[in-house]
């Protein structure tokens, strides 16, 4: 569903690679967790997947489409929620959702049904006619999530999705992620909350200084680490 092949990225004229020869694959029906210390290259990798940054080398294939050769078609395959969703402050929540439904060409009945469903789940129905500038960080995140789910994407990509969400919304999001994958789609997300990654991810990749240092299921990672400890402990050992 999502495949990265030897992807590298360098910023400016620095010699140090932000992302260095990264390869992994996210399969259909899989929740894939992406963990690593601050500055390891998680957000850069995600930005290259969602066509906000161009890799210096390597290939990114989303649902069979190369995101550098056919950018537009690739964009239709995923939706993305950044770690701190900066949205248009002067636009009302509902106007934002209509915009998202329009640009993804979501049929009328489907957009009405999905927006109602997710507004209900994230409990922002009452605020949806307010300007986004009046929203709290968490509410902006919820709105961005609703906007990202409108077109029922093949690959749902999230950067630090739990930050800012209240416990209920966080719980609901995890349910949505699982439900999404149960319908044969995929979820790819980065997180620092290793407990969450351990509990909900089918597979996990650990990135350090731009390089993938481990990929696999929790069992596989434990086996390679020769330890039955939690992901947190293994992560600390691997990234030290």
């Amino acid at each position, binding site marked *: 569903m999502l495949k990265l092949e030897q992807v590298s990225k360098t910023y400016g004229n620095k010699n140090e690679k932000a992302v260095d020869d990264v390869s992994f694959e996210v399969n259909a029906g899989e929740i894939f967790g992406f963990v690593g210390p601050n500055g390891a290259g998680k957000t850069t990798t995600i930005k290259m997947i969602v066509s906000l940054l161009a890799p210096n080398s390597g290939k990114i294939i989303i649902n069979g489409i190369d995101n550098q050769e056919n950018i537009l078609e690739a964009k239709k395959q995923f939706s993305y929620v950044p770690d701190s969703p900066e949205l248009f402050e002067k*636009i009302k929540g509902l106007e934002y959702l209509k915009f998202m439904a329009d640009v993804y060409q979501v049929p009328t009945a489907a957009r009405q049904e999905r927006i109602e469903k997710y507004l209900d789940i994230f409990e922002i129905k009452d605020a949806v006619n307010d300007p986004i500038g009046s929203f709290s960080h968490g509410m902006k995140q919820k709105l961005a999530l609703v906007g990202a789910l409108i077109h029922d994407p093949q690959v749902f990509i999230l950067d630090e999705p739990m930050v800012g969400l209240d416990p209920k919304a966080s719980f609901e999001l995890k349910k949505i992620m699982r439900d999404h994958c149960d319908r044969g789609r995929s979820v790819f997300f980065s997180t620092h909350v290793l407990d969450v990654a351990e509990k909900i991810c089918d597979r996990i990749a650990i990135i350090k200084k731009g390089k993938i240092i481990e990929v696999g299921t929790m069992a596989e990672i434990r086996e390679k680490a020769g330890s039955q400890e939690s992901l947190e402990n293994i992560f600390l050992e691997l990234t030290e």
Partner: protein
Amino acid sequence: MKEIINLTKLFINESLGFSLFFYNRKFNKKEYYKQLFTLIIVPVALIPAFFMYVSLMSATYFGLTMINQTSVFLSIGYIMATVLIIVFGVMYILSEFYFSDNMEELIPLPISPRKLIISKFLSILVFEYIFAAFIFLPILIIYGVGQGMGLFYVLLSFFVFVTIPVLPLSLMTALIMLIMQSTSLKGRKDMLQIIFVFIGIAVIFGVQIWFTSQLGNGDEADFQRIMNTLLTNNEGLLNMIGFAMPTSFLMAWALNKITLMSFVWVIALLGITFLACALMVAIGERVYIKSIVSGKIMKKGKRLSSDERSKALIKKSHGAMAVFTMDLRLLLRTPVYFFNNVSVVIIAPLCVWISFSFIQIPPEDLQGMQDFFREMPVLVNFLLIAFFIFFGGTSATTATTFSREGKASWLTRMIPVTAKDQIMGRTGVAILIQSLGILFTIIAVQSIFPLALSTLLLTIILGILGSLPILLFGLFMDMNRPLLNWDNPQKAIKNNMNVVITLFVGMAYTGLLIGVSGLLGYFVNSILGYGVFVLISAILSFVFYKVINERLESEFLNFES
């Protein structure tokens, strides 16, 4: 004091992005050269305008010498500089004190409100001193050289110059702080900003109308003669303005003729300036932080029922229309954008209307103008077309289209909208604004010069077509070098070189296009003139469209690299 200096440096750095500039010099050469180019091109681009201004002021001075009225020269300059500082300063004050995000980070720190207020004020002053140097220094120098003044004049001029932006800005800041702290204005800060800006424009118009009415019919008068008329026919004029701005008397008494009393007047001027500053700080200490803390509340919309939400979502829009609607909403709802991109289409036709309304054109002159129009429709048509292109070229709507989105631009870059739809949506907004300008102009002109429908259609179509290359060039510029990293929307426009470049290129293009096709139309054949106009505009538009269409998707990938 050290803390104030550090804070001031921080605010200036934040405004101009020095840290980023030096970071880019080391780590991101491409961005560094872009910024360096901007730093060089801005002063270079302003040189011709500055020389024109200095020439105009020199001519005014010599005109006044002839009628032995040089004593009012400094007063004219002082009043003009003060008015301009107030008008442009309002936006800076509002931006720095009320629309900048940095207060959210600074309020929790153990810094006294007094230091924050003084630092913010000083950071505005730095820019205003640069502005005042362009406007007022030439006046001081022309007068000093013309009168053969000595060292004391230089010394006293320096102190006068030091006070010139401080006094009006202190009072303006105090006034804005008092209005902003009113609790009834909660959630309406956008509206307030628009009101302030339009008050500023109203002041300019008021002065303009008043001056115009003082000039009578103003036939064939050049600037010198206008000034002479103004001064000889209306001796009380400067006194009247002077009473509204009493410090202009102190300045005039101090500098017109250097005596021992000049030092007293300059000390008085410094004293008044200091008091105004102290008043502003005292008011600020009482109300500023309080109004910032309570002023973040935005006006909420009404609660919608499920049916109302469904109804709002029912109509599907095409990608281009979605981009168009979003861009237009941002433009109309953000006061800074509205003022910079939209207000010109209201102000320019208003100027035309005011000129026609307040200057009484004698019937024989009017008849002459109408005869001229009938005899040379080609020239008049091209003049109208040039005016219509002006709305497209000056609005800078496309030249800031991506920059205006700032940090939220990730959204429009991520969505699956074709380059064609992006171009259509964004250019469409600019054309809509331009069309409003055209419409208002026609309404303003129609009462004096009723234009035939065929003339209207021809000039409107060619006006819009002729401006398309400028609009697309603006889009091309902003696609290549968007300014996304800003903390207040003012910077997306005011710090954006795309606006200046598009304006200059647009002016040069318009001049050439109108010149070539107008001359061909007048001297050879009108159809040929219009034909050449259409051909050049269409070819340029096509070329820009093709280039943007080809490159937009890949350029989106470079916005953050």
